[in-house]
């Protein structure tokens, strides 16, 4: 690892900026921790504190139905000093996690996989950002900063995913699977990334070595590694909690069945508030199926760019997963700059970004009107989460369009620059 001066600069400034923010506005972390846009039931730092309190007093952390996060977080956080008397070490721990995530992004970017992979080579190779710029986009994204300051545990899932990807593009497929196992253990949904990730590893393997492994065997082998890593982590968790089914139902059951309908930026809560109980199970099934269905479709259609499939799936998760927060959006925004060469092909960036900006300002305002001022109602906030999702969807659809266009231009070099007619 060659220490790059620019990288050190960016990382240093990002670190100092975060430190300055918590020193100048000591109330900011707690404020952000309480925001529904940042903290959901499955990543809230407040709930983690509750679980930690129970855990350190030898009570099952899942008693009381407040804590729904993975049990392995508890021993890690019990090592950190008490958050009320000394919040800085915890904050710095989170800053470091952010920096580590950014470093993983640098690795991904510098592998060049987003531009040139086994089956695909982008047409506009010269338009790209280097790893440090990509990391800077991630580190200085207000959503990332807000997530980091709110000490949301989503950052660990983000780490898992980013390291899985960075190891995959680096050809280190076993580590990739282990990292993905960690992410899936924490949040369940990253398991959906398995297929595109294995494809990234597979392509990488084919490129680097002459003898090609059998595809089916390769996939099965890696599935086994993933399963083993998850099982290992579950076993550890069992050791910690002592009651296997209790923690499974409190964590993964909570993810799958969506019993907590606290408002968030996603689409599920309002839908299930309105739902009659008799239809609930059916629609939970439909919603999960909908979420999972993108994996197959995107992977098949964009077979040549599995890394792009991962990026797009992260965008899909940010919109359609049960408890989304802005940290999911920030992860998607972190992956997008890897595809800088697609930006000229995108058509609605300004509109999408305006929609996202509008909703990120109006969201808190409407939430305030609903909850605090009492002069609005739930529909105000839900309308804004719809706009937020719309903005993200436009961005996502637009980026997929440009990726497809890029593939098409690669296949038809003579057609470059011709008009696309949409009928």
């Amino acid at each position: 690892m060659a220490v790059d001066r620019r990288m050190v600069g960016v990382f240093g400034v990002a670190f100092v900026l975060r430190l300055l923010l918590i020193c100048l506005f000591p109330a900011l972390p707690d404020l952000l921790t309480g925001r529904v846009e940042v903290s959901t039931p499955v990543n809230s730092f407040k709930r983690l504190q509750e679980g930690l309190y129970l855990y350190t007093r030898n009570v099952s952390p899942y008693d009381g139905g407040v804590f729904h996060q993975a049990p392995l977080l508890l021993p890690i956080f019990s090592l950190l000093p008490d958050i009320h008397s000394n919040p800085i070490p915890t904050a710095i721990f989170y800053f470091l996690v952010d920096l580590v995530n950014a470093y993983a992004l640098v690795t991904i970017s510098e592998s060049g996989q987003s531009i040139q992979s086994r089956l695909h080579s982008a047409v506009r190779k010269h338009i790209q950002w280097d790893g440090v710029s990509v990391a800077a986009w991630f580190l200085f994204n207000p959503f990332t900063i807000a997530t980091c300051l709110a000490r949301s545990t989503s950052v660990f899932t983000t780490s898992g995913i980013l390291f899985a990807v960075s190891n995959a593009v680096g050809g280190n497929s076993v580590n990739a699977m282990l990292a993905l196992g960690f992410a899936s253990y924490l949040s369940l949904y990253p398991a959906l990334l398995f297929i595109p990730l294995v494809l990234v590893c597979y392509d990488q393997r084919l490129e680097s070595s002459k003898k090609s492994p059998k595809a089916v065997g390769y996939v099965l082998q890696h599935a086994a590694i993933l399963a083993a890593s998850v099982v290992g982590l579950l076993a550890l968790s069992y050791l910690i909690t002592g009651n296997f089914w209790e923690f499974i139902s409190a964590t993964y059951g909570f993810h799958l069945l969506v019993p907590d309908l606290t408002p968030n930026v996603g689409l599920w809560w309002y839908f299930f508030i309105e739902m009659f109980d008799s239809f609930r199970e059916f629609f939970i099934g439909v919603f999960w199926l909908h979420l999972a269905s993108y994996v197959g479709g995107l992977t098949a259609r964009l077979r040549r760019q599995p890394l792009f499939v991962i990026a797009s799936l992260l965008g899909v998760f940010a919109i359609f997963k049960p408890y989304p927060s802005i940290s999911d959006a920030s992860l998607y925004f972190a992956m997008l700059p890897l595809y800088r060469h697609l930006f000229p092909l995108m058509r609605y960036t300004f509109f999408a970004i305006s929609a996202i900006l509008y909703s990120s300002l109006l969201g808190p305002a409407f939430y305030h009107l609903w909850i605090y001022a009492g002069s609005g109602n739930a529909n105000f906030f839900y309308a804004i989460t719809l706009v937020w999702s719309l903005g993200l969807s436009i961005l996502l659809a637009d980026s997929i369009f440009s990726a497809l266009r890029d593939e098409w231009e690669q296949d038809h070099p003579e057609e470059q620059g011709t008009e696309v007619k949409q009928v």
Partner: protein
Amino acid sequence: MWSVVQWGALIPDEINLGTMYRLNTYPLIHTGFFHALLNALALTPLLERFEAEHGTLTSIALFVGPLSTFPAGIYLLIEKVILHSNTSVVGSSIWVFLLLGSEAIRTYKSNPHFSLGPYKIPTWTSPLFACVVLSILVSNVSFLGHLCAILIGYLFGLGYLKFLVPPEKILRWIEGKLNLLGRLPHYISVDQKTFGRYGVLPSSNNAANGNNGTPMNFLGTNQRLDDNSRRTYISENALLPGQVHAYFTGSEQNIFRGYKQELQTLLNEGRKAEDQEAEVEVTPAASNKVHSILQAAGLKVATQKYEYTSAGITHQGENIYGIIHAPRGDATEAIVLVAAWKTADDELNLKGVTLALTLARYFKRWSLWSKDIIFLFTPDSKTGTQAWIDAYHDLHPESVQPLPLKSGALQGAVVIEYPFEHHFQKLHIVYDGVNGQLPNLDLFNTAVAIAGGQMGIGANLQEMWEHNDSYEARLQTMMRGMTKQGLGYATGAHSSFMPYHIDAITLQPKGEGWEDEMALGRTIESMCRSLNNLLEHLHQSFFFYLLMHSNRFVSIGTYLPSAMLIAGNFTIMAIALWMRTGYYPESKPDTPAGEKSKSEKTSKTGAQKIEKAVKVNETALPERLMALPLTLVTGLHLLGLVPLWTFNNIFHQYFTTATYIFVVVDIVLPLFLAALLSNGLGVSKPIIPQQYHLIKSFALLLLGLSLSTLATLNFSLSFMIGLLCAPLSFIGRLQGPAALRYGVSSLGLVLLNLLSPPIVLLGVCWYTGVSVETVLTQAAFGWDVWGMWTQVVVWCVWWPAWLIGCVQLGSSIF
């Protein structure tokens, strides 16, 4: 034999100067027992009601005097002069019809018609029907006499005969001298009359609608305002305003006087002892007295000390509050009655505090409360309630003591003010909260309905003492409301409740008139009864409204588009500029590729078939150079924190100086930045026109975003800032010959500087005659204590946008 009837009856031919007594005696004389009995049966309920409204003495004076004489006079006139006949009249039925007539007018005002099939019959005609029916059914009835009585009744009901009532001073004197209250059973004193003196329901003055010759006619008409506004109405059925009888009368006044005397003495003593000049300083002895009175009345009492420091001024004091636990409730909900020792205008609120004390004692004895009632006595209207309400919700700062005693969720608050000795004429209702938040319109309507409808006291708003419902008056009311909302400061003790979603208003007696503290007390009693009825928090009616009269408002759906259009203008301009950065008319004739696709995107989105020109002519592809514009715009917005911090944290003596310094900074800084940008910051390449467009685009985008968000929170502020920023859409870097550029941009800069935040502040202060220091001290106080964020909007939204506008214009010089 001397006949009483012959002596006292109203016989037209017998009337001369010597027999004028007949004009007043005839109602007392009846022809027989049954005549008297029937009349007495009809008269008793009507007269009883009249007496309850006007007091015993007034009733006697009126009925023995003018209300007998006037109908008789008219009767004589018609009977003798016009009809030349001589029908004698006796009996009190004349009074019955007079009272019926006056009642009918009152009914007509609240309920103008009753429907009989398809016909709408005005209610004022009902005594006429009665008169006709009676004439048909009973023989020997004077139809003409009754008609005359009804006529006088109408006149009385319409309030034209007010002048007949003996002055209150004389009545009081008689009352006092004869001790009538003590001697007579069922005596209704001057102070006990329940309704307004001439208990007439408030009428809306529609005469102004046809008023054409107004100087602002070219702007609009009342008709247009009518089309865009609605009459207020009570939306929450549970409130039932004015449906209960208010019993706060009679002996309570003695208690009021007693309490007032005690407090007055203590205040005077304290002032002498401490030799203080400040008239409104509350002595500890007086506070202790409040404490002991509340305790004696059987309330749970507690105190809370607090201290705030803002702009180098320390505000401290002690709140006293007592809680009546609801006999029929479970202490989950409460109503707050606030009396501050100093009113919002810093006057001594002695009668208000006394009234609250009297009400506390009075309410305690009622068993019908289903919500707790909290009586809060604060030293002033600015800090006291804020400290109390913060502590009530456990959100108080260190310098404020927590509350030892609490009740349930607060449902509403009413602030009582009565800062003078004389009687008042109208109630002024203050309703604006901190940061432009308003109470539910139902609360305001309840106050108006009770004050106007039940008590007969008119209600004013926004200091519009003479509101004739004309176009100008309506506009002025709205303007004042919007100014207060936009500035977002606390307009009274009630304002602090608003951020906690507790609807609150202040009732201020104003003017010199007939109404006394008992009338105010009854109004508050009736309001508490209405709030007591609530089954859930006030939520039915509007939270966003602009009032143009006490009975007319504009709802959010009507007015919000205006602010959104202003905010939208910036966004549209930002999009236009963004697209423009895609073109390079001056560099290459061939429009480069990817950018063109972007620039064309919206122009064609409407079409069914969307054509996209996507050229991949990479070499010519102009990238938008966004790093510098993004950094500059973000940086300047963050720079806004500097004045924000400065104006909220320095000592108040330096505010004026700081303002002038900022005026200078605002002149120099844009030129400096413009020079820096034009010369490429000394290191990098000079800035290109595209980047100027991008800077402007980002700045306007942010401005539009912020203002449209703000419009949902504080419409007026967004509207005002939007108007002040409107020129920023249209200015940019100038091109053309140097001389022209210099001239125009210098002129433009001067004009723009006139619209800069500090200059606007100075201008407004000069116009209103308030010192800059006062305004800024108040603003800093608002920031520190009330949680007011008008400054954030000024310094972090308006100022950066303005600054970037100036930099754009200034860059044409360099």
